[in-house]
């Protein structure tokens, strides 16, 4: 049992920090830059992505291992996985529009973009490729989503401070955000050797 927990712990640490889906694997950057203007927005986005990511990896794991592999339909993988994710995103859109309208308006174009959010698709793909068990997949997706939200909130905090900083005229707005992200990414490189 202890090795079981050890591997779970290793997954959590590596997925959330060492192999952070954004700052180490550089996946899922579109909403990352677009949505991190304010901490509140990024937490909202983080929750939405977590919801979709966890559910998507569970559903895709079940579909893949119990239906598609036995039937030998590997080539359908991309389409079916994205179909599941898109359905969940549409679900999120319906729920948000009803219950949290201002977050819905704040997300705007970035809500449908969760569908093609490379991070979620990558999680579903890796969850299958690594041959995780269902429990490991759930833990993996939760920790990746955690890593995503942490990175998002981190940048949102920085960006809110940046608004007060004296930034040269042409560097205001997105350019300075990219420079900040670059420094953040280099900082996260430090985690590289943590988990063998």
């Amino acid at each position, binding site marked *: 049992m202890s090795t079981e927990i050890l591997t779970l712990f290793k997954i959590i640490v590596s997925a959330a920090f060492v192999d952070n889906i954004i700052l180490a694997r550089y996946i899922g950057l579109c909403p990352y830059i677009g949505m991190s203007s304010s901490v509140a927005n990024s937490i909202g986005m983080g929750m939405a992505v977590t919801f979709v990511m966890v559910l998507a990896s569970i559903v895709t794991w079940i*579909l893949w291992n119990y*239906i598609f592999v036995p*039937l*030998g*339909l590997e080539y*359908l993988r991309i*389409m*079916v996985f994205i*179909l*599941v994710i898109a*359905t969940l995103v*549409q*679900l999120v859109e*319906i*729920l948000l*529009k*009803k*219950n949290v*309208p201002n977050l819905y308006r704040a997300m705007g174009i970035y809500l449908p973009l969760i569908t093609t959010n490379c991070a979620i698709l990558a999680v579903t793909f890796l969850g299958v490729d690594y041959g995780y068990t269902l429990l490991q997949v759930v833990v993996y997706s939760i920790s990746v989503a955690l890593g995503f939200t942490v990175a998002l909130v981190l940048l949102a905090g920085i960006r809110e401070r940046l608004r007060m900083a004296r930034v040269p005229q042409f560097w205001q707005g997105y350019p300075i955000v990219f420079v900040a992200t670059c420094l953040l990414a280099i900082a996260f490189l430090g985690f590289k050797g943590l988990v063998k």
Partner: protein
Amino acid sequence: MNILIPTVLVGALGLAFGLMLSWFAKKFAVPVNPLVQEVERVLPGANCGACGFPGCSGLAEKIASGEAPVNACPVGGPKAWAELSRLLGQESSSWEVKRAVVLCQGGKGVAQVTAEYSGVASCKAANLLPGSFKGCRFGCLGLGDCVRVCPFSAIHIDPESGLPVVNWEKCTGCGKCVAECPRKILVLVPRKEQVTVACVSFDSAREVRKACAKGCIKCQVCVRTCPEGAITFENGRIVISREKCTLCGLCIEKCPTHCIIRVGKTAALLEVRG
């Protein structure tokens, strides 16, 4: 055979997800007034705020509930107003389309410049200095506040004269520049051929002549020469009434300082330099 299996399988998935989504959509349906959506689709969607409401969706709600008049959106223009009145079932009457025009010709080489200004490049800021850097207290400072505020980039500073020029094709008459100009030189006029006095100064003839070559010195030559009596001198300024004026152009020739200009259909001030 292995065409059938995937098709049926994915089809079933599609059906299941479709049912789930539409059921959720129905259960969590946000009660949206369809009329508001239709009204919003007619509105231009520039969210410029000229109507005074928070963006087009704000205005759409007010129009649908009848609190705002159908022509509250100047940008939409008559085409949108007619469409809106059809949507709301009101009778469609004609409304006047307005455009902005610059009532000042005190550009480079015309108006006297009393100081070399290197402060904040905005008319509002320059206007705070008593008398600012121009001889004329009413003249255009040309620092482009109106250019920046215009959501439709219809105004640009003419490099030769240093004065703003309004392009009536792009101008939607939203009035944001009129509100922005600290010296009230930009005004909204109906969009048709007309003659107007291109000066808003109240100063006496002696000061005007000293400060600007094309300023109105209130000599009232135009009042006497106008065959229709369309021009009058009211509380300190020359006013040309659009109803009576027949665009004969007599006043333009007679005016000693060429202060009266012809405002055309397309671009306002450009005609003058010709």
